[in-house]
């Protein structure tokens, strides 16, 4: 559709990868800092898991930039994948934690549920290492965001009129689901061509920008939802 643009991106692939990774990492750390402050005041476990998700995503995207360098490529790839999958699990669990935990403050890293996520993530990373790809990560995230879309749709239906961002949050989960599905299709069947993957990158940037917009808007002191 825009051949000149694609050619320009293809010629400056590393530069664009750098800006893409850094942009998302910066968004993640802003979200992390904003939610960390709220967590420290409230000790709310849901805010804690949401915050952790963006911390893990932030680390993953910093590592993703490092993947451009051939040194330690394999190690970086494994660590990147670990943080990326754990970010997804934390975001998903932030919607579900109330069903599994009481309101007692427990560690968000060292508890049984998170240990299960760590083990699952470890298994996925090892399987992808053995199969030399990201197939298992893609499938796990597609399933995860499929369920997250259903949960956020239910949340929107039950409280969407009073809390406007619930609708946008549901849309973000759907976009996340679409982004992971396209990523899987393009990587598996179109040989990771930049022409196709660039669309996923744009979608990812939109997803993270919506998260940032939501966090900034909702945490504004004088706003009313």
């Amino acid at each position: 559709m825009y051949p000149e643009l694609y050619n320009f991106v293809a010629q400056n692939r590393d530069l664009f990868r750098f800006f893409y990774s850094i942009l998302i990492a910066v968004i993640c750390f802003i979200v992390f800092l904003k939610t960390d402050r709220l967590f420290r005041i409230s000790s709310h476990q849901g805010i804690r898991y949401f915050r952790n998700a963006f911390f893990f995503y932030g680390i993953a995207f910093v590592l993703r930039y490092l993947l451009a360098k051939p040194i330690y490529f394999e190690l970086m790839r494994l660590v990147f994948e670990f943080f990326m999958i754990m970010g997804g699990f934390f975001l998903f669990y932030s919607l579900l934690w109330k069903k599994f935990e009481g309101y007692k403050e427990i560690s968000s890293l060292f508890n049984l549920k998170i240990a299960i996520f760590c083990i699952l993530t470890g298994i996925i990373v090892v399987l992808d290492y053995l199969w030399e790809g990201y197939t298992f990560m893609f499938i796990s995230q597609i399933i995860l965001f499929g369920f997250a879309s259903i949960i956020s749709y239910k949340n929107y239906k039950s409280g969407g009129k009073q809390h406007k961002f619930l609708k946008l949050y549901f849309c973000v989960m759907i976009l996340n689901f679409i982004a992971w599905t396209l990523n899987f299709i393009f990587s598996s069947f179109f040989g990771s061509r930049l022409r196709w993957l660039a669309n996923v990158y744009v979608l990812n940037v939109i997803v993270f920008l919506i998260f940032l917009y939501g966090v900034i808007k909702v945490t504004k002191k004088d706003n009313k939802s």
Partner: protein
Amino acid sequence: MARKRERLEVIKDILNAIRENKNIKPTRLLYASNLSPQMFKEYINELIEKKFINLDVGEEDKKTFSITKKGNEFLEEYRVIERFVENFGL
């Protein structure tokens, strides 16, 4: 029928009662919180554990509650926290 208070709202009400009545006694706080004794105990334990309030034991074993700096910060930011939790479905 009166609507059921959300958890964060209950916490806000307890903290407000403590802030407005310095060194409030447990029985008075129980009435002010409008909770059952069992629920009241759970909330108080949680608030002490999260360092939102202190249980002070004075002369003749007299127990009173006082709000901490963290508890005050929670009240200042209550609206933002409530809005965040509700808008993100947490």
